[in-house]
């Protein structure tokens, strides 16, 4: 850790921030970054049985360094973004390599190799065909939005043509999504009495490499895309050694294949979005294994418009339809919370900029009529100067039951504060 700091300091000592002149094509080094102070604390906490971390969901300082460059005349290039952080809640320091990749462009082909963030699909905080790693714990505890996506060591090949363009991404080593843990969150745990738990991630075999592809082109003014994915559920499943008296839990990531499509374009005075994907649960094709998710069709429709200056509103409807629901119901153990055949979710996003966009007021809300739970994120961000931004917001969770995805977070309502200086 210490060595990393010294290396970074020595490296930067010899450079200076990229000015107007040398950020031109063919500069060997541009460097930028930020310092972030980010804190979140639970609101209205209960006095007993608190998670180990106490009331603080987040207490950290980060120095982020971004280095990038391209060879003279274009062609190859690189980009690296690393966070050096201090986590005050567990008194530890760490290095987080967010992204580090090489790029090479030739003719109609682009290659990008290394740790990189991938995003596609048309949902707003709802992901159907975007099956790349995410960190939901970051979202729920008020980290800046960029921390929702985590990088994946991967190779991306893009082919462009006038007819259609194609992205193919290979991820050799599986990385699960990060969810809140009972270390700092109140969570529903159906096997809370079982403490012997082991995580069984897919082995680092070539056969377990994930593959994702997107084929896209404009059709009648709409952005149309087809998607395919072969890999694993990034949300863990729990396998008890016995259904009646479990003593050990194995956390597994079952095989998954997804085929989907999306369409997005201007219509009826705003932007209309549609996306759907068929989730093929490869290890439970029959739908009779209660420990592995059944195959589903997931879909969303969204509409976004700007009715007045500097204000936008976005509405989404999202559904998860479970195939072979009868078999799911028949095989599902009694006493555990059961999912609906059609899980539905509505989201609303409102954003208003004020005072020459130095203030941004926003509200994002999830509401599920089937799970009867909700999640609200009101936030105010102020650009004090071009460099300094201060953000304060609240994560509010709730629901009729404490075993639904958002309802279980009910006791984790929190207020977060972040201050960021960018250079």
């Amino acid at each position, binding site marked *: 850790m210490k060595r990393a700091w010294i290396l970074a300091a020595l490296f930067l000592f010899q450079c200076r921030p990229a000015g107007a002149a040398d950020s031109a094509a063919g500069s060997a080094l541009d460097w930028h970054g930020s310092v972030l102070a980010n804190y979140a604390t639970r609101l209205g906490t209960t006095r007993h049985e608190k998670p180990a971390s106490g009331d603080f969901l987040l207490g950290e300082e980060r120095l982020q360094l971004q280095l990038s460059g391209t060879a003279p005349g*274009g062609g190859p290039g690189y980009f690296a973004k690393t966070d050096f952080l201090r986590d005050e809640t567990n008194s530890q320091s760490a290095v987080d390599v967010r992204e580090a990749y090489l790029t090479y462009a030739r003719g109609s082909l682009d290659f990008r190799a290394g740790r990189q963030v991938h*995003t*596609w699909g048309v949902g707003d905080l709802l992901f159907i065909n975007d099956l790349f790693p995410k960190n939901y714990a970051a979202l729920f505890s008020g980290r800046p939005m960029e921390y*929702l*996506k985590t990088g994946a060591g991967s190779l991306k090949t893009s082919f462009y043509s006038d007819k259609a363009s194609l992205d193919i991404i290979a991820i050799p080593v599986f990385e699960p999504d990060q969810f809140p843990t009972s270390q700092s969150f109140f969570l529903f745990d159906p096997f809370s009495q079982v403490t012997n738990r082991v995580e069984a991630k897919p082995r680092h075999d070539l056969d377990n490499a994930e593959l994702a592809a997107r084929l*896209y082109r404009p059709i009648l003014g709409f952005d149309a895309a087809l998607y395919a994915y072969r890999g694993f559920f990034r949300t863990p499943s729990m396998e008890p050694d016995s259904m009646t008296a479990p003593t050990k839990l194995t956390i597994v990531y079952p095989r998954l294949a997804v085929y989907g499509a999306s369409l997005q374009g*201007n219509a009826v005075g705003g932007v209309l979005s549609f996306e759907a994907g068929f989730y093929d649960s490869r290890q439970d094709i029959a739908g009779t294994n209660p420990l592995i998710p059944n195959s589903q069709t997931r879909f969303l429709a969204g509409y976004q418009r*700007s009715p007045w200056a500097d204000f936008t509103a976005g509405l989404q409807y999202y559904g998860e339809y479970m195939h072979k629901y009868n078999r799911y119901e028949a095989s599902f153990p009694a006493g555990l919370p059961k999912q609906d055949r059609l899980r539905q979710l509505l989201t609303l996003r409102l954003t208003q900029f004020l005072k*020459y966009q130095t203030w941004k007021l926003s509200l994002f809300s999830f509401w599920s009529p089937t799970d009867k739970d909700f999640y609200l994120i009101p936030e105010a961000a102020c650009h004090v100067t071009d460099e300094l931004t201060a953000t304060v917001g609240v994560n509010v969770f709730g629901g009729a039951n404490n075993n639904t995805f958002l309802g279980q977070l009910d006791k984790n309502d929190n207020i977060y504060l972040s201050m960021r200086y960018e250079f």
Partner: protein
Amino acid sequence: MTKIILQLMIAAALLAPASAAPATAQPMDAAGIVGKMQQAFFYPGDSFRARIKMTLKDISGGERFRELTMLRVNMPGGDQKYFMYFHAPGDVRRMAFLVYKYAAKESDRWLFIPALNLVQRIAAKDSQSSFVGSDFSYEDVSGRNIEADTHKLLREEELGGKACYVVESMPKAAAAYKRKVSWIDKTTFLPLREEYYDVQNQLFREFSAEEIKEVDGVPTAMKRSMKNVKSGHQTVVEFSDTKYRLALKAGDFSERALRNPPGSWIK
């Protein structure tokens, strides 16, 4: 009789040079003048690139900056494609913005957010929204549909030593302003000054082209400003590294450019 004819001929000869000074001797109609202004201001040279520095000044003397590179290519039928890449400040660095502007319908707009590697379509309905927090709106940056206003030639007068048409434009439907008065240079057809009046007929916004230079033979407003008269907030825009008629392909204005902008574009 002969004398009168001779006098008329002399008078005509004397008047001729003055009235023939602009390209057309025919008096122009207001919509025609605005049309030529739009061609000179938003469309010249088929394609265009500039490095743009915006200075946002508030009334208490505070300044903020935006630095971007803008590329434009004209399409048939008055359509255009714009690409903008942001160099500064830090919170927008490496962001890119792609606009397909159509003469007859709402623009398509995409924004690339580098931290999420996300290409996002943006609702385009409201063209009055501020462009990156400046005093310029999206409409000020890429032009307003000429048919959206009725235009009237008020008078012809000099502004800063330049002969101008003074044209009044009134929106046919509700808009950000009730009335706009433009001083359009008779020679270059560039707008030298614009005044925007609100529903109470009070001046609330002023545009001014402060420095005009020929670039590749095209008169170009290299420095321009927009001032909000009521709040005192002002935005000054300065162009540098300007170039017209670049070898740009319309097909290059694509998602690829948003995610991996060509090095030659973003200098």
